[in-house]
């Protein structure tokens, strides 16, 4: 039983490796850059799928959490504390390797926060903010929840657009590489393209393993019960408020981590990452992937994000995602990953009945 759950995971790993080999053979390695970015966007979308498809709670503010992650990391790693170099706490933090000496693009010596420390701060900040926002907002249902999360997204967008420290309309650039191992870092350098591609997809694979495990667990069943009949699940002992909040926080942290790594990969972040249309795009991808299907969502995320990043949609990029959302809601509320394919996935995994009956 257990091994069957991992057949799709192994397929994912095989496809990731195959795609890399194919791009190498046909000498189109530059595709890997967009595929790496696609991986990070997919991280947000699968978290949102858990929230929307399983717990049944919509969020139109997930670009906000992505931005919280990305901007926190960008601000902290581009700080310059060299003027305070002699201050006791700066020396202490440097010793603890929370602060680090580095050079910016022009060779100036800087003292800024180590990317690992910044990543942890970003994730914690996303946790705290999603907790504080989630407690009041998740009491709402349906349209009201959508409006409230939309409002949150607009606030984050306004803050990053209107704050000098966040680079206003220009965003923040000059974000340093994120060191993983000696010689390996998350950055846009073409020499590290293959490694970055694998690291990004390793993150997605790890997240998929965790989420697939979760939806087949006691908690996943409780989340689907909340979706199916909230007051009945409460009467059966499910602390519905806490479960909704935890799921919201989990998806927010995934979005923030995606934001951190994509910002280091791109070397910067701009306010468009926080825009409402990005949030709508994520919701559209979950919808088109078939709410309640992590694999369908991942597949659609890869296809749509890759086409979008390659510029196939041209100036109609946002319109494409808007249209997709409208068309899906009208004609295929269960997504376009057909029920046949989902039955197939369900057969591979007899425990996952939800794939069939959604």
């Amino acid at each position, binding site marked *: 039983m257990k091994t069957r759950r991992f057949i799709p995971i192994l397929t994912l790993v095989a496809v990731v490796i195959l795609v890399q080999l194919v791009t190498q053979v046909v000498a189109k390695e530059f595709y890997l850059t967009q595929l790496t970015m696609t991986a990070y966007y997919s991280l947000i979308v699968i978290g949102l799928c858990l929230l929307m498809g399983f717990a049944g709670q919509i969020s139109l503010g997930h670009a906000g959490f992505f931005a919280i992650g990305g901007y926190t990391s960008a601000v902290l790693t581009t700080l310059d504390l060299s003027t305070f170099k002699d201050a006791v706490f700066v020396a202490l933090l440097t010793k603890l390797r929370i602060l680090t000496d580095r050079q910016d693009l022009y060779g100036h010596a800087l003292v800024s926060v180590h990317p690992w420390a910044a990543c942890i701060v970003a994730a914690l900040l996303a946790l705290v903010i999603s907790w504080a926002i989630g407690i009041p907002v998740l009491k709402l249902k349906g349209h009201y929840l959508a409006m409230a999360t939309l409002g949150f997204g607009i606030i984050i967008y306004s803050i990053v657009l209107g704050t000098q420290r966040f680079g206003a309309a220009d965003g923040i650039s000059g974000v340093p590489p994120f060191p993983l191992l000696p010689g390996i870092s998350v950055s846009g350098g073409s020499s590290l393209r293959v490694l970055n591609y694998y690291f990004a997809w390793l993150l997605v694979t790890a997240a998929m393993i965790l989420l697939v*495990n979760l939806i087949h667990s006691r908690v996943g069943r409780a989340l689907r*019960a909340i979706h199916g009949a909230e007051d009945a699940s409460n*009467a059966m002992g499910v*602390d519905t408020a806490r479960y909704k909040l935890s799921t919201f926080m989990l998806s927010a942290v995934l979005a923030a981590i995606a934001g951190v790594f994509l910002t280091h990969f791109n070397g910067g972040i701009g306010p468009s990452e926080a825009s409402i249309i990005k949030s709508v795009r994520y919701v559209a991808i979950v919808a088109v992937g078939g709410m309640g299907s992590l694999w369908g969502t991942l597949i659609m995320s890869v296809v749509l994000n890759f086409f979008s990043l390659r510029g196939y949609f041209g100036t109609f990029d946002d319109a494409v995602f808007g249209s997709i959302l409208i068309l899906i809601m009208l004609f295929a509320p269960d997504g376009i990953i057909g029920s046949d394919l989902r039955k197939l996935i369900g057969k591979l995994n007899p425990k996952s009945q939800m794939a069939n*009956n959604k």
Partner: protein
Amino acid sequence: MSLLEIKNISKRFGGLQAVKDVSFSVRKGSIKAVIGPNGAGKTTLFNLVSGFLYPDVGAIIYQGVPINGKDPYEIAGYGLSRTFQHIKLFAHMTALENVMVGCHVRSRAGFLAGMLNLPWARREEQEIRDKAHAMMDLLGIAHLSGAEALSLSYGQQRAVELARALASSPTMLLLDEPAAGLNMRETADVAKLIARVRDLGITVLIVEHDMSLVMDISDEIVVLSYGEKIADDVPRAVQTNPEVVRVYLGEDDA
């Protein structure tokens, strides 16, 4: 010895006094019914006990612990499990999965254990599955386990709901109009099921509109009228209580 004690509870919705100063107690191991005409406050009383509403005044004591003001999921944790008048099964889930949710309150694997698929969580999951199968066996609906819950007939859905409630290993079962929408034969089946539940040692509090169901199986009956308790006695005595007869047959009855 009383398992549940309801002390002087009242609930008002705007100008409507839905429940007014009602007190009664439920003996351990007994079947107690609350009956009354439509609008008598039965369902309100039920929602007060199960935590869906909070009483304005009064106390609800379960096994010596006050439970008024607690949320439904906490009350489920104390061992009170309920069903709904309008069956509330979980959509897009099989009958078995519905019953497995019933085990939620007696199991503990959280987000981390689930995501990491820890060995003890896997064992617990297997125990939950076995327990759910056992409950469906007990109610004679084992053959329905793979069916999507909402695709079942009304009577079958009632049985699944009951199995789900029993899966939480309750000490007391709260049944909200279990015969609503059932024909006479199905009602008789439900009566048998309720008697079987009592024989398992589970105390039953049942709210019912239909006199015929409760007269046969109840040990004691509380009668409500316009939110007030007008009788609290064994079925035979309730049947001959002039006040009850007046409420059920109408006072202009000659």
